[in-house]
């Protein structure tokens, strides 16, 4: 009976925020006004509670198949366990079929949702962080004229994100993939009167669309290859994947690389990461939720979800790892020199996402490691959501009190003025830097461990070694820039910008409480679920993941990363608290390197020059072509009869003799012609 309840209950997880969004969109301004956040929070709370039910029932039940027809799938999957691909088949914890969305020919797409272990984790993360951020935003956005609009879009986002993770087929995934992009667009451009916000929103959407283009093609390829888009039909049939991979591997490669392009767009991987830092134009809660904790991790989720496909294309996995590595390193380098607090965090997000992809890519080490690698990525995703959210919200709190000033050069020493924010930021920063025993530490360790396993790979061992080194360097840089930001903001002499007014204040309780909760999670969640393998064991229940090996703690890795993290923090302390002169000298010594980093490696400019400009030029060219070639050609064709007429006009001279002459001449010519024709 409980399960029957959950079948409908599952729909409530996205449904409640959707209802909230609809209510707010329709009656927000007239009816709810300043109470809009309550509607939103209520909706998300319902989602969160139901998500927790799903999470815990998953913990107990394991493969509890509810929906009809699942027995078959499961039966098939059981029958293939002998193939040695591992625990395959794709049965859900909960599954519920909605309505038939599309049915064209062989193509049947239903609005069906399912929840399994991976979904449950994602759902819980999403709804929990959303709830906290929504509470925070209730205080942060207070007094904004677009208050109801903000929470409408916010709720819509939560709905879309829940549906994204609940989707039971690739098309639905794509639908909500784009829908979260849409919400992101609306929220980045929330302050649409600012040209920079409008531009950033557009940029985010268009760059995402480039990724979606790949994703869409990937879906097409899945359809032509598998003849279905349902997870059961694709991911749930490892035997089929294996057969296809054996005979025409290019199909699997194509699918995986195309899907990854989609993930690159959404998860801001190099070189499609350019939109994410600009997205900071949106309100800070949005940055915290969408552009740090949830939406940007959709790519990671998708690749993780498609592990059954990826394990058959190691080359693609290596590509993923490489791009992840490059992203992690490049973003970390850029983050070193930014003075905009939110931008530092944004680049840090990009860098951490790179980490996650590094982990996913390291699954190339072999099918038996795949689960470990995926677990590492998902674990990092999980912990990252908390500590990045707390960092962003703290930054928001700083902004709120500094009168929307975010340039770290203009304020400092806020430690005493904003003790709560300071504490929470510190907690987040420590977690991000990978301070031992905090959440970031455990997840990062897992990733580095996965990488070090991958270095044993026979073909790509060397490459993975390089990536392993990159990961360590990035970890060092992460610790450094995080604490650079921390020290610049909270230490040193107290300085306030004039915008802040006379009395910079601590965050109001509505903002402080969620901060504290998040900080608490950042500090402890890793320790609770990490070393206890709670997380790993839970995630393993995700259908479709290959059987994992033994879990054990990697003491060596932990040691190295501890050293790295402390080293980074120490360096930052030395540079920014110890003596300020030294770092400037360093920067000067680095010269062009420093400038490159500060200017984000000129990637935006390169994009502009290589893509935007040529396309704009081409567009102008099209217009000119229309105007001067096609239209001229048409005018020409149109003019031909006229010219013809003008040429012949002298014949019509009004003189009878000349008429007679032409008539007679015509007759003679015709007679001659005909004579020749008939006689000849």
């Amino acid at each position, binding site marked *: 009976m409980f399960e029957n309840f959950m079948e409908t209950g599952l729909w409530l997880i996205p449904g409640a925020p959707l209802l909230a969004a609809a209510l707010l969109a329709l009656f927000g301004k007239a009816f709810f006004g300043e109470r809009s956040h309550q509607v939103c929070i209520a909706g998300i709370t319902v989602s969160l509670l139901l998500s927790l039910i799903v999470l815990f029932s998953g913990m107990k039940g394991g493969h509890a198949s509810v929906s009809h027809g699942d027995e*078959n*799938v499961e*039966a*098939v999957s059981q*029958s*293939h366990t*002998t193939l040695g691909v591992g625990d395959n088949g794709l049965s859900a914890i909960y599954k519920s079929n909605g*309505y*038939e*969305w*599309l*049915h*064209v*020919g*062989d*193509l049947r797409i239903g609005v069906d949702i399912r929840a399994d272990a991976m979904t449950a984790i994602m759902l819980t993360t999403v709804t929990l962080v959303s709830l906290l951020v929504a509470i925070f935003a209730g205080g942060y956005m207070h007094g904004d004229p677009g208050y109801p609009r903000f929470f409408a879009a916010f709720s819509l986002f939560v709905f879309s994100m829940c549906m994204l993770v609940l989707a039971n087929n690739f*098309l639905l995934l*794509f*639908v909500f*993939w*784009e829908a979260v992009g*849409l919400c992101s667009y609306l929220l980045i451009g929330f302050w*649409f*009167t600012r*040209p920079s916000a*409008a*531009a950033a*929103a*557009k940029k985010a959407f*268009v760059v995402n*669309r*480039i990724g*979606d*283009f790949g994703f*869409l*093609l990937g*879906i*097409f390829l899945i*359809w*032509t*290859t598998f*003849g279905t888009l349902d997870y059961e039909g694709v991911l749930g*049939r490892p035997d*089929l994947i*294996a*057969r*296809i991979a054996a*005979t*025409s591997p290019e*199909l699997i490669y194509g699918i995986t690389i195309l899907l990854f392009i989609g993930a690159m767009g959404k998860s801001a991987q190099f070189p499609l990461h350019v939109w994410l830092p600009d997205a900071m134009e949106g309100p800070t809660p949005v940055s915290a939720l969408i552009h740090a904790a949830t939406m940007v991790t959709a790519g990671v989720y998708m690749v993780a979800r498609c592990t059954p496909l990826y394990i058959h294309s190691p080359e693609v996995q290596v590509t993923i790892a490489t791009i992840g590595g490059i992203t992690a390193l490049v973003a970390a380098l850029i983050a070193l020199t930014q003075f905009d607090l939110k931008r530092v965090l944004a680049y840090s997000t990009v860098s951490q996402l790179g980490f996650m992809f590094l982990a996913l890519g390291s699954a190339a080490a072999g099918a038996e490691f795949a689960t470990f690698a995926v677990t590492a990525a998902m674990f990092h995703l999980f912990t990252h959501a908390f500590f990045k959210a707390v960092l962003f919200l703290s930054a928001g709190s700083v902004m709120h009190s500094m009168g929307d000033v975010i340039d770290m050069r203009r304020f400092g020493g806020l430690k005493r003025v904003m003790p709560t924010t300071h504490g929470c930021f510190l907690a987040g920063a420590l977690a991000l830097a990978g301070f031992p025993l905090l959440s970031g530490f455990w997840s990062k360790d897992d990733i580095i461990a996965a990488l070090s396993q991958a270095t044993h790979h026979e073909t790509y061992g060397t490459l993975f070694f390089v990536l392993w080194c990159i990961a360590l360097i990035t970890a060092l840089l992460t610790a450094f820039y995080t604490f650079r930001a921390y020290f610049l903001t909270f230490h040193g002499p107290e300085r306030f910008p004039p915008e802040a007014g006379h009395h910079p204040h601590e965050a109001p309780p509505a903002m402080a409480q969620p901060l504290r909760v998040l900080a608490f999670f950042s500090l402890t969640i890793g320790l609770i679920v990490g070393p206890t393998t709670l997380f790993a064991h839970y995630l393993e229940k995700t259908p479709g993941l290959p059987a994992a090996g033994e879990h054990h703690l990697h003491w060596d890795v932990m040691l190295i990363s501890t050293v790295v993290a402390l080293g980074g923090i120490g360096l930052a302390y030395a540079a920014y608290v110890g003596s300020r002169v030294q770092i400037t000298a360093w920067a000067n010594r680095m010269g062009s390197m420093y400038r490159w980093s500060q200017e984000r490696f000129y990637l935006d400019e390169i994009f502009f020059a290589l893509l935007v400009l040529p*396309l*704009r030029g*081409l*567009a*102008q060219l*099209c*217009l000119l072509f*229309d105007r001067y070639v*096609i239209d001229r050609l*048409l005018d020409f064709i149109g003019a031909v009869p006229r010219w013809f007429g003008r040429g012949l006009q002298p014949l019509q001279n009004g003189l009878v003799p000349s008429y007679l002459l032409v008539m007679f001449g015509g007759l003679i010519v015709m007679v001659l012609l005909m004579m020749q024709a008939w006689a000849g």
Partner: protein
Amino acid sequence: MIFLPAVGAVLLMIFRSSETSVSRWTALWVSLATLGLSLTLAAHDASNMNQQGGVSRASTQQNPVQPRLGFRHTWLDFSESHANKNIPVAERYGRGLKLEFYLGLDGISILMVLLTSLLTVSAILISWESVRERVTEYYVCLLILETGLLGAFCAFDLVLFYIFFEFTLIPLFFLVGIWGGAQRRYAATRFFIYTLSGSLVTLLGLVMLIIQTNQQIPLSNPFSLPELSRALAENPMHVSMQVTLFLALSAGFMIKVPLVPFHTWLPLAHVEAPTAGSVLLAGVLLKLGTVGFLRLALPLLPDACIQVGVPLIATLSTIGIIYGALGALAQNDIKRLVAYSSISHLGFCMLGLFALNAAGISGSILQMLNHGLSTGALFLLVGMIYERYHTRQLTELGGLAQKIPLISVAMIFICFASMGVPGLNGFVGEFLSLLGMFEAHPIYAVIGASGVILGAWYLLTLLQRGFFGPVKIPPHTEHVPDIQLREAIAVLPLAVLCLWIGVYPSPVMKTIEPDVNGLVRQFERDRTTLFENQNREATAQAVSKEIQSQRHQHGASAHAVTQIPVGAARSSDRDIVR
């Protein structure tokens, strides 16, 4: 139903009233009545379908084209001319040549009829105040145009289709020419001559088609589309003949659609036309071209479609998608931008059509509908903006979201629908079209899909420049009202439909399913894929309860199957040479 607007128009013409409001209300009521009638028909059809059960219907349809409701009336019977005594009676028999007044409804026409009648209501509402001169004539033109459009969608006689097809030129010519912008005369003339030239070639093609068929297969009525399509499906024409015919028929349709490079009349006509004209032109009139392909080229000339249609049309429409999008990107005039976006959207439409499979064709039909709704709504909104600020130049506008928030919200919504954001209608059509094409010829779909990126780009640029950022409006337009109730009524149904089709497209799909299946069958005759067999096999095994006994067998088969032309085999390699 078709002639209801015409009757209204005639009444208006006869009792021309100096009181303009009378004309307005009459036109509105007539168009509403038409809408009501078409809704009734659609509902009737839907209930019929439900009674018979969609699947069984789909399988019973034998002809590539078969209306569900029909009205036939012999119009001009040429067969009597064959009472020539020199021809023996036996030979005379079955060589009839009858023009028929043959109207019918199938799924495609139901959708198009609904779209037309809905957009006409919107068009009348939007011109309520913007048209102040020669009001009666204006509504007469609109109603006559509606008649022509409805007729073309319902015609099941080749010549009748052509008649309505061409007839629509006349009222639109007046609409653009009389109530248009500064360059209206040039635009109207160019539009008229250009499309007429193309359609004359089409007429020639039709004549060719009929005569050739008639000489080959004795038919009681070669003008009747269902009969002709059945005859040709059983007894196809020679391929080279088909190709010639296809090219001739396409000439008019390609201009009408319009495919690049035959598109230049469109932006001009759109920019100069009054709002209502643009709405109907973009929303419905362009569909005459695609419906032409769908109705005539696909069922009657299947081999030519495969041999010439796919490479030619698919290439052109792919170019059109990119070209139109780039053209839109470079525009400063909102209306021109939307016009170019039409070219791009119609490219998707044609791409899907020439995928020649169920997904593609359904997607294409849906895309026709979608484009009608979203572009129609876009033009409505652009018209509202123009009415308020008397400019459409993006350089002169900015930050409208602060000045006219509700119109801006509508604009944003429709832009998203137009660029194919999932959950709204545009996505479904584009997705299916591209999916269909990908199945058939991946390369076109890949290039075409990049239009999705460009689509987002130009529409968001439009939003960014016109609606966001600091306020910038022409002087003396400080206090303009936001959306009026009348305008809201014009736009709202379109927006609601956009959302509805995006969220729940199944009813639309069900409506066209039998027709699409009928069409597709002739393209799929020889298309079997190993993969489908596998699929079937796998499903069978899944359903089977004897899994234990099959385990080893299946395990073995996984290794035994050495060649799997998965995917590749799904392309339509039909043996063309006969």
